[in-house]
Structure formats: structure tokens, C-alpha cells
């Protein structure tokens, strides 16, 4: 019962991210510096989750998935940093990036409280929910908010990768049903 409640807690947290980004998408008020900050933050959060998985899991599929998330999201951040450097834009913290990071810290603590198969299931459930939320935020908020064409193009190029990550996560999740 406690385990069930704890698992549902993780999912609830993940879904709260979905609803948060969805509601924010209805009221986009971000400039390019803020869009860049949200993009980097969203990628860094998944790198942080991957680090937790690397430390806690012994499951080969989870570890492989986490390594892919870490490498791919680092690649996206590198591209984003190169672009903002070229554009002479300094990413600026804002309500969205702060909310994303605050929610992620809560999720990270919940993940750290688990171990074994319960951790693996919670991690991959969260990855599915998180990627759905981020895809929604990138398509519904960040791309429409971007003024600079190169920033918009970079965000558009990231979407297929996020969708492949989601499909991959859903495939791994099937092992934990």
C-alpha cells in the first residue's frame, strides 16, 4: 500500500509538471533569453535524473536509457550554449525555468527515496511523463515564443529527439508493467 502510494506520488508529481507547462503554454510571455533558459533547464533536469539512475539502478535497460538521456541532453545544451554565445544572448531565469527546477528537485527527492525495482519503475514512469511534458512545452510554449529564427530552428530540431526518447522510455516502461 505504501509502495503504491509512493509510486502514485511520483506520477502525480510528473503530471503536475504536465499541467504546469500546459497552463503556462496558454500564456506565453517569454523573450528569447528566457526561452533559452527554459530550454537549458529542461535538458539539465533530465541529465540530473539520469545521474540519479546511474547511482541507484542495476537494471541494464535503465542504465542504458539513462546514459543515452545524459549524452543526448548534454549535446542539446552544447548546441544551445553555442547558439546563445553566437547571438550574444544570456539565458535569463524566469518563472517557468524556476518552476521546472523546483518541481524537479521534489521529483528527485522522491526518486532518491526508492530502491531496486521500485526505483526503476518510478524513474522510467517519470521519464515518460517528463518527456511528454517537455514536448508539450517546447511545441506549445518555447517555439511559439522564440523570435530569433536560429533559436526557433534549434528548438524545432530537438523535438524529434524528444519524441524518440519518449518512444524509447515507453518501450523500457513495458518491462515494468
Amino acid at each position, binding site marked *: 500500500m505504501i509502495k503504491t502510494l509512493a509510486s502514485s506520488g511520483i506520477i502525480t508529481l510528473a503530471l503536475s509538471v504536465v499541467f504546469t507547462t500546459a497552463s503556462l503554454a496558454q500564456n506565453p510571455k517569454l523573450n528569447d533569453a528566457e526561452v533559452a533558459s527554459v530550454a537549458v533547464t529542461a535538458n539539465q533536469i533530465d541529465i540530473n535524473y539520469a545521474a540519479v539512475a546511474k547511482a541507484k539502478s542495476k537494471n541494464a535497460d535503465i542504465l542504458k536509457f539513462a546514459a*543515452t538521456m545524459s*549524452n*543526448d541532453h548534454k*549535446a*542539446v545544451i*552544447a*548546441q544551445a550554449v553555442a547558439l546563445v554565445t553566437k547571438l550574444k544572448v544570456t539565458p535569463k531565469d524566469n518563472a517557468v525555468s524556476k518552476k521546472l527546477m523546483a518541481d524537479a528537485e521534489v521529483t528527485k527527492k522522491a526518486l532518491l527515496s526508492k530502491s531496486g525495482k521500485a526505483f526503476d519503475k518510478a524513474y522510467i514512469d517519470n521519464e515518460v511523463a517528463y518527456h511528454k511534458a517537455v514536448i508539450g512545452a517546447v511545441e506549445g510554449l518555447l517555439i511559439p515564443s522564440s523570435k530569433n529564427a536560429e533559436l526557433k530552428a534549434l528548438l524545432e*530540431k530537438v523535438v*524529434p*529527439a524528444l*519524441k*524518440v*526518447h519518449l*518512444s*524509447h522510455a515507453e*518501450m523500457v516502461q513495458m518491462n515494468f508493467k
Partner: protein
Amino acid sequence: MSKYCICFILTVLLFAGCSSSQEKPKAYTVEIKDMKFIPDDITVKQGDTIIWVNHDMMAHDVTEEGSKLWTSSIIPSGASWKMEVTAAANYYCSIHVVMKGRIRMQ
């Protein structure tokens, strides 16, 4: 027509036939772009070469799916890998396992 002349004509026709049936191997390109193999289904002849070019910002690989008979190892962003085709195969990216492609033999 002398028998030497007939022999010469037959020899010329024989060489002409051989050269037309032994086409030079071709090189084909598969783009890796937006997390897809483009084209994801390609038909080649034995001895042809396929070059996979990674245009994505992420690293990929190209790995035979059934028994891992061959693999490119990691293809970094902007890099490419080529292979002479010896048999039909289903392949995938072992990093992003939902990315799949197919090689058919003509």
C-alpha cells in the same frame, strides 16, 4: 566471311556481354537526420557500398538487428560510416533503439 572473322566477332560480343553484366559497384547514401534513417528502406546489389551520414546533434550507430552481425560503433555528430553490403539486413541504432532501417538485395 572467314572463320577468323567470325571468331573475332564472337570474341567481341563475349567481352561486350561480360562488361554489361558486371556493373561497377555503386555507392548509396543514407542520411541520419531528425532521428531517422533517410531512406529507411534501401535496395542495393551485393558489393555496393552504403554510407551513413549523421546530420543530427546526437551520436548514433548502425547495428545489424538480428544477431548484431555488424556495427558501425558510435558515429559522432557530423561524421559518417560506410559498409560494403554482402547480405540483406534489418538494422537499428542501438543507442536510440526505436530508430530502424532495412537493406534489401536486388
